[in-house]
């Protein structure tokens, strides 16, 4: 087996309540009581598609599944096939609009389509697109059942990640480097002094709450090294299972994992307004083609230059004419865009 290359299989763990709610909506629809369209909402990498696949698996012969992978520009692309079942699953509905003048016609057509009481629509949405559309177009009214996927707890993350391995296949090793990680770090904040055209570094102390918590837990001898590792992964990934999986894969030196290998990549983001807006568009779709991005933001933006800048900062990955938000940067990007008031 190659070093750290083994990928754990995706398991649906932690969405039991959400699955139960969806199954109830399906049962109500089938019994003719109610037709309540469902919107499953989550941030990127939080497991929407895995949940959708699970619903499909649980309801064979009953559902037809559609998925969008890029922005839908033509209304014809959303016409249901003649062979569609009465329950329709549609994944990644954030691709049904473009944040530009004239970019909502497909969405409008889609909302007309899902108003059909003879069909139950179960859809998934990127959280940030959903929030935007709910404010500007009130799409929430079309989805009486809204399911916000919760963040995973540490034990759910552990269960989810380890489900891809045999029992005791992974060795959890306590290492010296982790012990050396400081609780209080001296940081430097750069400040430019305009009159003298100089930059100085203002020292300040930053408390590493995660290390503090882990040390306290360790002192009380309440946790095993295994739990400490997953506690750290939980902190770094902010409970996002997709991000946690990436962090796990990066940190694993198969079959060994050490706490010191789990790095908290925090990004000190400083972007101008146009760059922030482009980043917001990418976050709202998770991945988007460069051409679509150019169409959305218009000719005023130097899209290629901005994509290069965002890639250089490690916030997005640009390849094959598309941009995708980097999972490791997700937490920092969301915090930054909230501060910039681009994410509401």
């Amino acid at each position: 087996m190659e070093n750290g290359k083994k990928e754990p299989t995706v398991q649906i763990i932690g969405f039991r309540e959400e699955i139960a709610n969806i199954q109830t909506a399906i049962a109500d629809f089938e019994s003719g009581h109610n037709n309540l369209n469902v919107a499953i909402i989550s941030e990127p990498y939080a497991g929407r598609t895995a949940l959708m696949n699970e619903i499909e698996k649980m309801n064979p012969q009953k559902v037809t599944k559609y998925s969008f992978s890029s922005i839908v520009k033509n209304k014809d692309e959303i016409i249901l096939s003649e062979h569609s079942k009465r329950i329709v699953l549609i994944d990644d509905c954030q691709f049904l609009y473009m944040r530009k003048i004239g970019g909502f016609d497909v969405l409008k057509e889609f909302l007309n389509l899902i108003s059909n009481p003879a069909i139950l629509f179960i859809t998934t949405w990127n959280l940030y697109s959903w929030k935007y559309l709910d404010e500007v177009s009130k799409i929430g009214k079309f989805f009486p059942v809204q399911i916000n996927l919760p963040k995973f707890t540490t034990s759910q993350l552990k269960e989810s990640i380890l489900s891809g391995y045999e029992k005791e296949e992974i060795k959890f090793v306590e290492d010296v480097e982790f012990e050396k990680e400081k609780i209080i770090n001296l940081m430097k904040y750069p400040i430019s002094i305009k009159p003298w055209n100089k930059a100085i570094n203002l020292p300040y102390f930053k408390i590493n709450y995660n290390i503090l918590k882990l040390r306290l837990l360790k002192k009380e001898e309440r946790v095993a090294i295994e739990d400490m590792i997953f506690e750290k992964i939980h902190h770094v990934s902010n409970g996002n299972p997709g991000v946690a999986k990436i962090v796990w894969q990066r940190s694993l030196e198969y079959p060994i994992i050490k706490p010191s290998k789990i790095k908290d990549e925090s990004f000190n983001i400083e972007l101008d307004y146009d760059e922030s807006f482009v980043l917001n568009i990418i976050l709202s779709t998770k991945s988007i083609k460069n051409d679509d991005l150019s169409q959305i933001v218009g000719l005023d933006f130097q899209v290629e230059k901005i994509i290069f800048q965002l890639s250089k900062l490690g916030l997005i990955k640009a390849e094959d004419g598309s941009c995708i938000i980097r999972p490791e940067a997700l937490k920092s990007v969301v915090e930054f865009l909230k501060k910039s008031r681009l994410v509401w």
Partner: protein
Amino acid sequence: MIVLPIIDTGTMISSILVIVIAYLLVRVLTFVLVLISERSGQYRITVKMVIPLLKFSIYGIAAYYILANILKWESSQFILFGGLLGAAIGFGLKDLFADVIGGIVITLEKTFQVGDKIKMGDYYGEVIDIGLRATKLVTPDDNLVSAPNYLIFTQAVASANAGAPEMMVVIDLFIDPASDAVLAMKILKESVMTSKYVYISKKRPFTVLLKDYPFYRRLRAKSYVNDLRYEFEFESEVTRRAWKEFSRNGIEAPNVNILEAGVINQAK
């Protein structure tokens, strides 16, 4: 008989030193708070609110320290000082005194705050400082205006955002009555809601209105800009994008009928 204390060089130096320390402390704290506020996103104005309060407190404490601890005034001397101050106010310092009181009222009553966009007297702009004597505004033309604080007693002050980082911006576009007004409204609406500067929430909705006039139709968009510092950029961006789309869809600006009528009359 009240005996005034002799102020020796040491006392004088100590007093000056306290004033200098207070001044430096105010400058440093203001600098740090501005720095923090700029990194606080939606709490930018909340953090800046502390600055004037801090300023008045530090100068107040410095003044008290000088009078009570360095000059070691007794109650009779305070009474004498009060009398002299009253006379000084009567003889010409009343405006200065009114400004200081105005500053205290602004700080305590929060009539407006640092970071707000206000109209005070004839001036409109962003409040960048509430000082002991005057409030400093930066106008849209980047002029620095010092409006005396006493104006709050004599004039109405309008605050466009009342402490919130977002503020309403009203954008008017005028179209020819023969143009498709429904399409124009749709375009303006989408121009607003897709703007990079817009802020929309349950409490901050947006609306597009139409009004008929004899020679034109007015489209009015009322919406919030996410940061009041982008007020004019927002207005310009929405207007520019809407007009670009108007011209693509054959929506025209009003014909200048009044002028034409004038030309016809002249020809007659």
